[in-house]
């Protein structure tokens, strides 16, 4: 293996089937006359089959029921979930607000629509604040590329038991 151009990377890719057909042929040809690489491949192959011995477990029968309970108890139960602003809803809302503001500028007296919008708006903000952790997670998850250099698990630890 010392001084051999075949690295652990390529052997790993060969074994897990992620190497291209050409790469595979090249390594196989090399294995014919390199005992070190052959031994290394064989060792990894054995490790691979040992790891296969680990059986999968089944989730408990209560899994779904428990999840449904937790969803029902979540701060954002489905009957109210329409309050959570989807980006398009938020954009439409902003547009409405702009129109309302513009209308109030046009008329000398404040437009009644502006005031009637207020409670709805604070309610939206409240939902967003309540939901902040999920939002933060989502922003992180939606922007992987920007975070490549950052360590994993940047979210605060405020989960319930």
């Amino acid at each position: 293996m010392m001084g051999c151009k075949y690295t652990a990377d390529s052997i790993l890719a060969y074994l897990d089937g992620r190497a291209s057909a050409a790469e595979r042929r090249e390594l196989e040809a090399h294995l014919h006359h390199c005992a070190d690489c052959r031994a290394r491949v064989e060792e990894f192959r054995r490790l691979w089959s040992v790891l296969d011995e680990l059986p999968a477990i089944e989730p408990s029968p209560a899994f779904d029921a428990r999840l449904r309970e937790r969803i029902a108890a979540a701060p954002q139960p489905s009957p109210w979930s329409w309050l959570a602003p989807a980006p398009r809803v938020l954009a439409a809302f902003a547009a409405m607000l702009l129109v309302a503001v513009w209308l109030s500028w046009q008329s000398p007296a404040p437009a009644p629509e502006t005031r009637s919008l207020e409670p709805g708006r604070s309610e939206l903000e409240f939902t967003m604040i309540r939901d902040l952790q999920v939002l933060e997670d989502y922003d992180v998850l939606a922007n992987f590329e920007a975070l490549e250099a950052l360590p994993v698990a940047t979210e605060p630890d405020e989960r319930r038991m």
Partner: protein
Amino acid sequence: MARSDVQLMLDVKAGDEASFELLLQRYRTPLVNFLHRMVRDAALAEDLAQEVFLRVYCARRRYEPGAKFTTWLFRIATNLALNAIRDGRHRKAELSLDEPAEDSERALELPDGHPTAEQQLLEQHRQAVIRRAIFRLPEKQRAAVLLHKYQEMDYDQIAKILGCSESALKSLLFRAYEALRVELAPLVGLAAEAEQGRAPAAAGEGRKA
């Protein structure tokens, strides 16, 4: 034809609860297994898997199809597992390691031709040794191996889940498999012996990560 994960998630976003059920059926077992191997505690693994689904459900209105659905799902799962480990929520599991390391070789020297009950015991013992070897990997290496070996994900997807480059992931995986090869040398050797009638392999020059 089965609907794709992305299509199901878009249907969930549009208010279709049945599609959420389908996603749940599809990923309940893989998630519970991934988390179980991460935290080595079945009850905690279930709790965390539920948390993953809960978060997906709560974020459904904001879902935009971008990265693969499973990348999103397993990234949430990985973050939750790492947090649970850092919070010490897995400590219970760590203390109740079912198999102390010193016992492993003794148990493996059981004579052949014993009743099925003993073979079963041996099998369970091997599984416990494998579980523990995986659990002893540093957290990020552990996650990388689990996603690579058991979830059979691409390098590109695992790198996104772990928030590292593909080349960093490859070296992470290599170090992890080297550590496992050393840690599991007795099992790897015996497996080879059974297969080919050869003597168990020596632990080799591999380094521990």
